[in-house]
């Protein structure tokens, strides 16, 4: 297990203790969320969403744009309060005790959420301090992580806006890993990346999976990515999770006339969307 730095007091310790027990890393039960738009229009973003992520498990959620994946990640990361249902992170109620669960998770989203004028190193040090990790503690960890992801350390002093999207996304993953989260929320981490950057980021996620003790929720519309990285894959459409199973079982569920479809065909059969439509 990685060094656990910046752990915040007894509540954080409680999460760590729970983490070591057999309970699920993440458990959602009947989560609902609607947003009011203009002219009294109501959009149902999450509709009775229930699923679990086991300890050390990687669960992928496949869904077209607008299916509710990002709202799901925002609800789990305590940025959006659901209208109904429960969210538990290692048994702790995330709605009632957001600060407690925030200590044990981190998130990488499709947009690189960085101060664009600051360097990668300055952004990483700032991100670490928000979790109580000092510069002295963070620097060796940053070096180690940057070396692991093949990021040229000399470029860490350049402003983020000078780095490519792929490099920015690697820094986003490094920032998340820096706080040693036991639950990682990855919201389309490879969307918009060139093929090489995408492969690098996916390889990094595989290394996190292998070397760290983190549970991962990965939202994506990349079928290969989901199949390769995830222990179980769910399909989400219009705020509902239609199925959540191991990739092979999921494909067999949509088998017709003895033909087991690919995950892409499974996705199309379940949602009615092509992959291109899903990512449009």
């Amino acid at each position, binding site marked *: 297990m990685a060094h656990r730095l910046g752990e915040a007091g007894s509540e954080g310790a409680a999460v760590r203790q729970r983490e070591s027990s057999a309970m699920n890393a993440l458990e959602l039960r009947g989560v609902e969320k609607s947003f009011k738009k203009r002219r009294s229009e109501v959009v149902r973003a999450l509709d009775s969403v229930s699923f679990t992520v086991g300890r050390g498990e990687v669960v992928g959620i496949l869904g077209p744009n607008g299916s509710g994946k990002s709202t799901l990640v925002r609800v789990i990361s305590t*940025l959006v309060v659901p209208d109904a249902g429960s969210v538990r992170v290692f048994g702790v109620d995330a709605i009632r005790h957001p600060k407690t669960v925030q200590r044990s998770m981190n998130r990488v989203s499709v947009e690189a959420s960085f101060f664009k004028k600051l360097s990668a190193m300055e952004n990483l040090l*700032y991100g670490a301090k928000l979790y109580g990790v000092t510069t002295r503690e963070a620097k060796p960890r940053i070096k180690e992580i940057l070396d692991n992801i093949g990021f040229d350390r000399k470029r860490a002093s350049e402003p983020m806006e000078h780095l490519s999207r792929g490099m920015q996304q690697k820094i986003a993953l490094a920032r998340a890993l820096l706080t040693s989260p036991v639950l990682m929320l990855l919201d389309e981490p490879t969307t918009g990346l060139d093929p090489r950057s995408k492969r690098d980021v996916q390889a990094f996620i595989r290394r996190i999976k292998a070397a760290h003790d983190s549970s991962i929720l990965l939202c994506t519309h990349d079928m290969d990515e989901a199949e390769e990285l995830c222990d179980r894959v769910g399909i989400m459409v219009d705020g509902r999770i239609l199925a959540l199973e191991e990739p092979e079982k999921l494909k067999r569920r949509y088998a017709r006339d003895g033909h087991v479809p690919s995950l892409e065909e499974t996705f199309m059969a379940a949602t009615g969307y092509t992959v291109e439509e899903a990512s449009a």
Partner: protein
Amino acid sequence: MQERIKPRWLVELVATWGYVQRNYYLTKRYFMWELVWLVYVTANAMTITFIGAGAQDVAGIQINTGRYMTYLLIGALIWSYLSMLFDVLSETVSWERWEGTIEYTFMSPTSRVTHLLGMGIYAVLYGIAQTAIMLGVISLFFELDLSHANYLGALVVLAICSVSLLGFGIVAAVLPLLSPEKGQQVSYIVSALLLLISGIYYPVKVLPEWMQFMAQFSPVTYALRGIRDALLNGASLRELWGSIWPLMVMGAVFVPLGLGVFHLGESYAKRTGKLKRSG
């Protein structure tokens, strides 16, 4: 395997320093803009002070020009400092929205008090540095009448006012959470109203009665009255008490009020999904 558990207070302290350091890094990166802004506010303060230099000629009557110029300059400098505190705090949310970091900051485990405290500490340090440079430059151009000044008294009033104005700024910072489209504009209006009613370049008593009534609720009113008394008349701390106690009351009210209102605003934004929205 190594577990190092930090006490909560230490985690919050590290995060407070994180906010201060982040803002310092940003100031460094935007150095040319900072320089432009410094030149602008310094030139603005000098322009206002020159109004005092020309007042005798314009009005055609005998006045104590040196005292009037000092009166105006104190107003210009103190407003520059206090409005900067207000702006930094009130732009906390909209600034992070613009940078795209608001969700990352708001899902971090440290408290909102720590976040706003870090912003406030940096605003005070930045404001002191900016005002000191302005004063240094301006003093080269004007002979100011500070022969009776009680500098300690002025600093005490300014320090207490800083606290109450930070609370005022926190209340204003919640506006972009309530309305991503119009919130920041409203806080600019609040800032403009403070400038109008607080007696920055003229005594409050020259204002219409309804504005004088509003001026009672502005911490800037008491800060300027006290600082001018200290610097122009050499008023002692005992004599400044009339300006100090309202500022203390406002600080005691506005800071908890600001934090409470911000908490409610954050909860509202998380319920309605307005945290991320930029308009």
